[in-house]
């Protein structure tokens, strides 16, 4: 098979604007987009830059936009495509550092704002916790997140509003709020009761659509919203009594 790879190139230190460059790629074997990119780099242009590591859709390095679709290059097989033209762009709404490599700092920065670590009460017990599987199952959906950044990059709100924490961070917060071991006070997690937090979400569900691991971050955002409202009502009620 012969493919045309139309790859966005950009070196901010040299180029005025990003541009597309075409590479002709031939292969007899079944290859993923990532394998093809590595071949192109090795055989045609060693300056082509992109991230990769595990090649099994678990490390979150190789998120990019492939023929208009957000996905991991490693799990996208060439034979899935009907046309032989394959257009590859870096994740949008994040600064390009070089070619397909973007600055993930805003994504991790937003993540760190929700205090993404367990906040337990008391020290280490010698026997461990007792938690029923069904309690754990409530958070399993969210711990599948591999922090690839697809949802953040695709989110229309994150792209126009710097304050917005984005889907992955909010879903991560929900993961902790739901964890029976986590005892963070309401005053802590209710900080997302803002436009930069859960109310920023436009409920367009782009995040659910693009997530390669089926995390459905918007489920977490919606659940946080409900929980906030319930907690507030509880508080008002308690106050009146």
């Amino acid at each position, binding site marked *: 098979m012969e493919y045309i790879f139309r790859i966005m190139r950009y070196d901010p230190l040299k180029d005025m604007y990003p541009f597309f460059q075409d590479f002709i790629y031939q292969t007899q074997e079944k290859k993923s987009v990532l394998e093809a990119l590595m071949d192109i780099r090795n055989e045609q242009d060693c300056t082509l830059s992109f991230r990769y590591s595990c*090649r099994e859709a678990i490390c979150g390095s190789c998120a990019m936009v492939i023929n208009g679709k957000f996905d991991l290059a490693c799990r996208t097989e060439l034979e899935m495509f009907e046309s032989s033209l394959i257009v590859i762009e870096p994740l949008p709404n994040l600064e390009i550092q070089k070619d397909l490599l973007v600055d993930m700092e805003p994504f991790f920065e937003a993540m760190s704002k929700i205090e993404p670590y367990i906040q337990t009460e008391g020290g280490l017990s010698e026997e461990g916790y007792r938690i029923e599987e069904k309690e754990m199952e409530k958070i399993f959906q969210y711990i599948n997140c591999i922090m690839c950044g697809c949802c953040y990059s695709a989110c229309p709100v994150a792209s126009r509003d710097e304050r917005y924490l984005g889907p992955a961070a909010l879903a991560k917060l929900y993961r902790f709020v739901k964890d029976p071991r986590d005892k963070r006070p309401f005053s802590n997690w209710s900080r997302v009761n803002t436009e930069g937090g859960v109310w920023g979400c436009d409920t367009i569900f782009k995040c659910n659509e693009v997530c390669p691991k089926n995390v459905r971050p918007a489920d977490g955002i919606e659940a946080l919203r409900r929980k906030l409202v319930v907690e507030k009502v509880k508080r008002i009620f308690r106050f009146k009594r």
Partner: protein
Amino acid sequence: MISQDILVVGGGLAGLAAALSSDPQLKVAVISKVHPLRSHSVAAQGGINAALGNTPDGRDDSWESHAFDTIKGSDYLADQDVAELMCEKAITAIYELEHLGVPFSRFPGGVIAQRPFGGAGFPRTCYAADRTGLVILHTLFEQSIKKQVRFYNEWLVTRLVVRDGKCLGVVVYDLTKGEIMPVKARSVIFATGGYGRVYQRTTNAYINHGSGIGIAYRGGVPLKDMEFVQFHPTSLYGKNILITEGARGEGGYLVNNKGERFMADYAPSAMELAPRDIVARAIQTEIDKGNGFEGQCLHLDLRHLGEAKIKKRLPGIREICIDFAGLDPVETPIPIQPAQHYSMGGIDVDKKCASCVEGFYAAGECACMSIHGANRLGGNSLLDTVVFGRIAGEEASNYVKECEETGDSEKILLDEALKVKRRVEEWMNKDSGEKVHKLLIRLKAIMSDKVGIFREKRDLTEALERIRALREDYKRVNISGSCLRYSQEIVNIFEFESMLDLTEVITLGALNREETRGSHFRLDFRKRNDRDWLKHTLVTWKEGEPQVSYKGVTINKYKPVERKY
């Protein structure tokens, strides 16, 4: 010049564990060639061992039986005091991980769930479905956010700077800026992982080039037991993505093209759950006998486990099969073949993770202390990373508080950085030459054909010659681009030198060791020979050549006997 008290190289589990346990009063930083969450630890699937005794048939489990299984599994090459240390610390280590937020799967009653794994007398592998590495790595990363650990990501360490037996720091290639520079450190901990990519078929990440091990070797630290390379029995046919031992732990069968559960011929009582070296050899033997499918693979059949169990306990495996092989294990057996998986050998350190170079420590897969001996048991490596990562951080902290500064270290470091810079310029200034990816293809072919699961003198000798010939070709390597920022080619050229060193050491050790032990199977010496070979291989880089020596094994409680499963 950037200067640290403790510099951890590697952002995988061992590296993060080391950074988190270092004294917070000290200046600590982590350097990693990829963002920590992209480290290969994230891909670990099946679980982590500790004798919690949470299953009904595991009530009698104890850390002592865990230690015994580890030692027996190692074919008695493990240093018994170190294996005992790890297994004793395992139980607390798991509860600590749980306390830090790791969402382990649970049993009724709410205790941590455990599954059977190969070579283990009791079910003692704790897991989070089949994404154990992901949840532990993410949890330790969360803790590093909490503790505000300093990270330098996308920096490749290219050299360890040692003077008069003392470690002064490292030289790095900062990919983000395209610069070569020195980093001063009073203590350096390597947690740089394995070298799987020197083989064609490996379960390891693309980035697992093993350069840390090679850099330590060039820094004068011996490498230990490198000939012991683990081949995992079940990697997905073609892509060689790991299909966890947990799949057999949950009850999966291995089947040949005659529909037989052939393990009955190789390990009649342990069957599919014999240690990895035995199962991998059995599979390769079946394939070689013509009992494979397409002459290349066998089947791992999970269908009888049922959809519910597969979805609950092995969701990641199901996803891998669907994404990468277009099949659903609920309905179809998984085609599998053995692939390189783990390095038992590594940088020679003691049970404090200390090496012969003052201030230089190593932990995790890159290190060898030795716990896993000639064959590692599944679920023991994650344990090794968290237990010994932590010890490395503590020991390095103790060292730093007592050591004295070397006065002229900055000048020495600058000189070393300059040397490295000159090399890069040299690669760039050549108009033509060898391409590193082509050299790598050749190296992998040698290792796979000649230094694989079954070994013999003729092959090993030939491999050694051909690796040495590749060294000559490597001298002519050049770069075709001019951009220094984010140049994967520069990374690959640096790391290839280490790959040459490692493969030479592996092959040399394998050629010398005229016996069969654990993962090292010699067709021409099919028996274990304790009289001559119950000892560790040490290879040291001296005056441009590998020098081989040997060191005794610590044996206290368990007398070496024949391994039967």
